């Protein structure tokens, strides 16, 4: 009997002591945490991609709660919609960052850009870029080792075996920007998704002078200024023999696409052009 009693007493005693210690500890080491952090974290997409510049959604939530002005902070995944909700929950003003998606600004496929030598080093764009300008005459374009695909944690990219260029699967891209960081040639850019996913961009980053660029790649931007002159919205800037379309100013009129002599300006997700079809029909008739 005594043994049983002793056992029970010992256990109860241990329990009581532990309870007291735990209680004291919880009081003494209590960390105040703003309850709003949890609320914000709920709103955030929980991808923990780090695209916002913070290590994970929780850290971003903390930063959002702490900051006085959150207009310059953006969650690239949820973009303005998410940020509006966050702003509402916190009673702050959100910026109006548009939803974005990655685009590959190089169209130097094996057909367009002739291979002049064979790379035989480690399969890594970063290593190849440190060594030389690449297998083709264009030292700005895609090296094709797939560092971006490696960096993408959301399976939103793959290397097209035929063209040798990376392809972005728009539906899967969450705009975390890891591929942009991974590309040593700065070919990948985050651009606004645009209305109905329609986008226009210069698919080339070659800064060589026109003839040199054209010689190494058929579809290079040669800096001819045609698009710059025709753009009615001042959305195009020229620098270093290269055109750039500002996606905030672009009204998607597609005039630049038509004038580009090397077809280096790309349009995505537009319906097929009626006008051209009609013109062609007319040409056939006459």
């Amino acid at each position, binding site marked *: 009997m005594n043994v049983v009693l002793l056992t029970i007493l010992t256990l109860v005693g241990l329990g009581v002591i532990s309870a007291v210690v735990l209680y004291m500890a919880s009081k003494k080491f209590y960390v105040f945490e703003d309850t709003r952090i949890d609320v914000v974290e709920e709103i955030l997409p929980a991808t923990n991609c780090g695209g916002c510049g913070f290590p994970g959604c929780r850290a971003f939530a903390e930063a959002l709660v702490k900051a006085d002005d959150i207009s310059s902070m953006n969650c690239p995944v949820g973009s303005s919609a998410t940020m509006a909700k966050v702003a509402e929950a916190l009673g702050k003003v959100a910026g109006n960052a548009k939803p974005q998606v990655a685009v590959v600004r190089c169209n130097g496929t094996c057909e367009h850009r002739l291979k002049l030598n064979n790379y035989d080093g480690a399969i890594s764009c970063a290593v190849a870029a*440190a*060594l*030389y*300008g690449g297998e083709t005459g264009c030292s700005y374009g895609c090296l094709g080792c797939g560092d971006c695909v490696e960096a993408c944690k959301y399976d939103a990219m793959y290397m097209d075996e035929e063209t040798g260029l990376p392809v972005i699967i728009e539906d899967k891209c969450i705009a975390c920007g890891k591929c942009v960081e991974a590309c040593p040639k700065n070919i990948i850019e985050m651009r606004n998704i645009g209305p109905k996913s329609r986008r226009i961009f210069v698919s080339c980053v070659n800064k060589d002078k026109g003839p040199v660029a054209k010689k190494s790649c058929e579809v290079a931007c040669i800096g001819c200024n045609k698009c710059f002159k025709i753009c009615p919205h001042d959305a195009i800037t020229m620098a270093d023999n290269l055109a750039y379309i500002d996606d905030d100013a672009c009204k998607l009129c597609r005039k630049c696409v038509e004038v580009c002599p090397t077809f280096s300006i790309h349009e995505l997700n537009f319906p097929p052009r009626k006008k051209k079809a009609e013109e062609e029909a007319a040409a056939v008739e006459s």
Partner: protein
Amino acid sequence: MLKTFSLGGIHPEENKLSADCEIEVLPLSPVVKVPISQHIGAPAQALVKKGDIVKTGQVIAKSSGFVSANIHSPVSGTVEKLEEVIDSSGYRRTAIIIKSEGDEWEEGIDRSPEIKREISSGKEEIIKRIAEAGIVGLGGATFPSHVKLSPPPGQKCELLIINGVECEPYLTGDHRLMLEKGEEVLIGVQLLMKALDVKRAIIGIENNKPDAIKHITNLSKDIEGISVQPLKVQYPQGGEKQLIEACIGRQVPSGKLPIEVGAVVHNVGTSYAIYEAIQKNKPLIERVVTVTGKSVKKPGNYLTRIGTPVSDLIEAAGGLPEDTGKVISGGPMMGKALSTVDVPVAKGTSGVLIMPDELSSRKPVQDCIRCAKCVSVCSMGLSPYLLMALSERAIWDSAEEEKVLDCIECGSCSYICPSSRPLLDYIRLGKSKVGQIVRSRTTQQQ
């Protein structure tokens, strides 16, 4: 027991095919392309424009900072244009294209073959003239020589070490220079000693060049302060830090310059160029280039003007063999593979090595078997397998702790790896990334 460095090292096949070929003068090329960035540091600023008439030896691009170097016209003729050409860096960079007409030299340059022995210039003047003549380290690093001759305040140079090691397989330019221009090289060494204000100079030569050791020993017998140190054949003995340790047993601490242990190292090619610059008033417009390779018909050593296309050199050596897989500027261990043979010869081009197809491709990469051979051959005492893994995974802070910046890129690890892993490829990447991080940290602190 011959002296050598203490850690690691390998002994690749020497293949010094052109060791017995006398230096020949390469005929002038009709058009030369002179890159304005042939050295470590700021690119020079072009002084000429299209249509200018230039003479051989005239300054055509001016040094644009302390760590930079003048560039002189290697030929006389008309400047055709300034254009971006692919140089041995593998990228397009600005070069001055000169159409060669005749060979008219700038006045005041002594082209006579007589050796001028008496040294009349003072310390300051020597350094100034070296800078004016655009002399850079000709061993391959192309670091402007005058910078090395101006030790930072508070540090004293005790002795000069001359690098006659030529540890790269195939290359023989320095070897031939020591044999054929030994006396001039030694006058260059004396000039360097005067510029550095030191009493002692050691010329380190590997034991696979017994003729050069004998010749230089004979010549330097009567010169006070100069001695020859025969060294055991071991790659990378030509590395500055390895050579200092091999010669005087001192190790340059991590991240420090050789002056920390009281030594300054110059190459024999550089000493020859310095002799010409001071005694003959001739700027650096030509250098000895070894053209070699197992498939080359006529391997040789050619005195080549800067800016000459590599293709001309290859022609002189019997043309590009049919089965060529790779053309390398420099030696097989540290040289750069060229993407085209139109690349011009620059100040740092020590050789042109042609590799046949079957020796050109790398073997397929296998998994690391952790055999530790890379660790045992590393002459800096690093762990290449670990550095590669860290670089592959972009863990830069650990790579910094593991001293990735100490790597001298000698390539011994990739050479020895049984799994043919691209160790140095990734270590080099890690080195440049960590270097950026460290530099941005120091600028932030300032």
